[in-house]
């Protein structure tokens, strides 16, 4: 029964991907197809990473409204991009090879996240909500610095930063994509082997411990995986703030289960589907560029408020 739903999702995703690849294919076919393949791979991997990371965060925090975007990842990414352009100038920042930029972004975000997790979790006796609020405040601080740096920029510098303020799938670097995919596969492999442990951890700290699961260590491991997934996907494409929220609530209402063996693949598939279908509609029908992320943020936020008013969130 449940497998059928996953299969169905997979079929729909495959159809959407085919539509994305072959719709309106004209001119130098091989060249266009190659470009679209890279873009599609970017959409799929970012989607899967964000979906899985959000499910994981919600599991270990036992809270259905949290998304990694709250914890200041996006703000840190923007600060990095703005800082690079402000510090090195247009010429200097464009001379950084894309792969090095990707590695730098991912490493800084991952390092900051690990620092936050380890230092705050120890102080707060594993209070995840408090940790998230700490991340939120840090994010506000990063945003303040970013706003200050952007103020100093001239419009041509700002236009470079602006292209990175919202997720972009058009200019994904291939080597970076391969690296990101490798890291993601590693994370997914670990999750696949440990999905049953996650089911137990979702029962809460005390229950999990009495069932023999080392909850605190697991929590730290899962947080590291979340940090890796979010850092990599943000460094690859840019911030997609509330996509995860949209995805997990769809996955929960479709699967109606707490088993991670089903939830995680469903979330990954739905997330990729939203991105691929959204990008197709935006590019081919509406002919708008670069605003898919803003629309996703808007819809995700509306859904959040709807869930809140319905009392679905605990």
């Amino acid at each position, binding site marked *: 029964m449940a497998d059928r739903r996953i299969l169905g999702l997979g079929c729909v995703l495959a159809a959407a991907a085919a539509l994305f690849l072959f719709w309106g294919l004209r001119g130098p076919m091989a060249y266009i197809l190659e470009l679209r393949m890279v873009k599609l791979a970017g959409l799929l991997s970012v989607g899967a990473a964000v979906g899985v990371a959000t499910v994981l965060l919600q599991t270990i925090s036992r809270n259905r*409204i*949290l998304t990694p975007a*709250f914890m200041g990842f996006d703000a840190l990414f923007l600060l990095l991009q703005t800082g690079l352009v402000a510090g090195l100038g247009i010429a200097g920042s464009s001379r950084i090879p894309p792969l090095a930029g990707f590695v730098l972004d991912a490493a800084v975000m991952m390092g900051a996240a690990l620092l936050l997790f380890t230092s*705050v979790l120890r*102080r*707060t*006796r594993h*209070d995840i*909500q*408090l940790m*998230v*609020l*700490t991340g*939120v*405040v*840090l994010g*506000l*601080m990063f945003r*303040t*610095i970013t*706003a*200050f740096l*952007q*103020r100093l*920029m001239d*419009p041509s510098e*700002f236009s470079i930063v*602006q292209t990175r*303020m*919202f997720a972009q799938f058009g200019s994904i670097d291939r080597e970076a994509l391969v690296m990101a995919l490798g890291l993601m596969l590693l994370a997914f492999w670990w999750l696949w082997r440990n999905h049953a442990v996650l089911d137990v951890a979702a029962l809460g700290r005390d229950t999990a411990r009495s069932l023999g699961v080392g909850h605190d260590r697991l929590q730290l491991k899962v947080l590291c995986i979340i940090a890796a997934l979010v850092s990599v996907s943000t460094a690859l494409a840019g911030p997609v*703030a*509330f996509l995860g929220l949209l995805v997990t609530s769809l996955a929960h209402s479709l699967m109606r289960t707490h088993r991670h063996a089903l939830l995680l693949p469903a979330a990954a598939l739905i997330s990729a589907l939203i991105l691929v279908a959204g990008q197709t509609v935006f590019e081919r029908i509406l002919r708008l560029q*670069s*605003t898919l992320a*803003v*629309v996703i*943020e*808007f819809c995700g*936020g*509306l859904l*959040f*408020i709807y869930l*809140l*008013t319905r*009392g679905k*969130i*605990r």
Partner: protein
Amino acid sequence: MADPAALDSGGRRGAAGRRPLVLMALLLCLLGGISLFVGASPLHPGALLSDPQALQLLAVSRIPRTVAVLLTGAAMAVAGVIMQLLVRNKFVEPGTTGTNEAAMLGLLAVTLLTPAMPLFGKMLAASASALAGTVLFILLSRRIPPEQPLLIPLAGLVYGGVLMACASFIAIQTDLLQYLGIWMSGEFSGILAGRYELLWLAGGLALLSYFAADQFTIAGLGRAVSLNLGLRYGQVLGFGIVTVSLVSALVIVTVGMLPFVGLVVPNLVSRIMGDNLRASLPAVAATGAGLLLLCDILGRLLRYPYEIPAGTVFGLFGAAVFLYMLLGRRAHG
């Protein structure tokens, strides 16, 4: 909150209780004096008697700027404390409840639809949309279970994010994104005589709220208790929302967003003076004004002769203080 002992000490305050306020007033005067003589173009107190240009500089730029900072700081801190009482949550301020974002959305709409609108009209539009945004958030916050205090600021941030997404979408399509950014970091270097007078209105509103301080304190105990004590809860709530929205809109239109002022100052003061607003509101206003002025002076000095916006300096300082309050509390709690 309103336990008899606290009210009693508020009543007994008298001469001994005034001492901190007198101290604060002296500090404010000192900071104000420094602020008059710090800036890109040098000004010596001695030159005032001989040089008419120095007097003009003082009258056109330095005095308006100092007054603007003081008014803004006081009004924002008061708006923050009112918001915290109305939502009954210590972690909110107009910047984390969508009020600022709603004001920006209104400002953006007016700028696009009627570019020639005078400042006062823009202010009205921003206030109206800030009001709508705040009312919606208050309605929303009622649905959140009070036993999860951290959920409300998170909900407010997401709500603000949704409004901001609308604003960004419009701004991207119309190439106004950098223009939007100008409102996002509040600063005072553009303040000259004739360009800040709207802030007097914000200061007036803050003063007006002092007369309703007792009502706000009771409203902070919740709707049921307020009604039980004979408070016209709806009226007080309405007055509070209008005050918060107008102050936020006025500040955004004239100087821009100033995050953390409304969040940090009331929390600092309530740690020392408690939650009886009648006693603590003057201290909240004075602390807000003083801290913001300090940040503005620092911003003027750190990269002399260039400036760092007061909003940026306060953002860093406020985040640090807030994190300390957040994490320090739990470490020994």
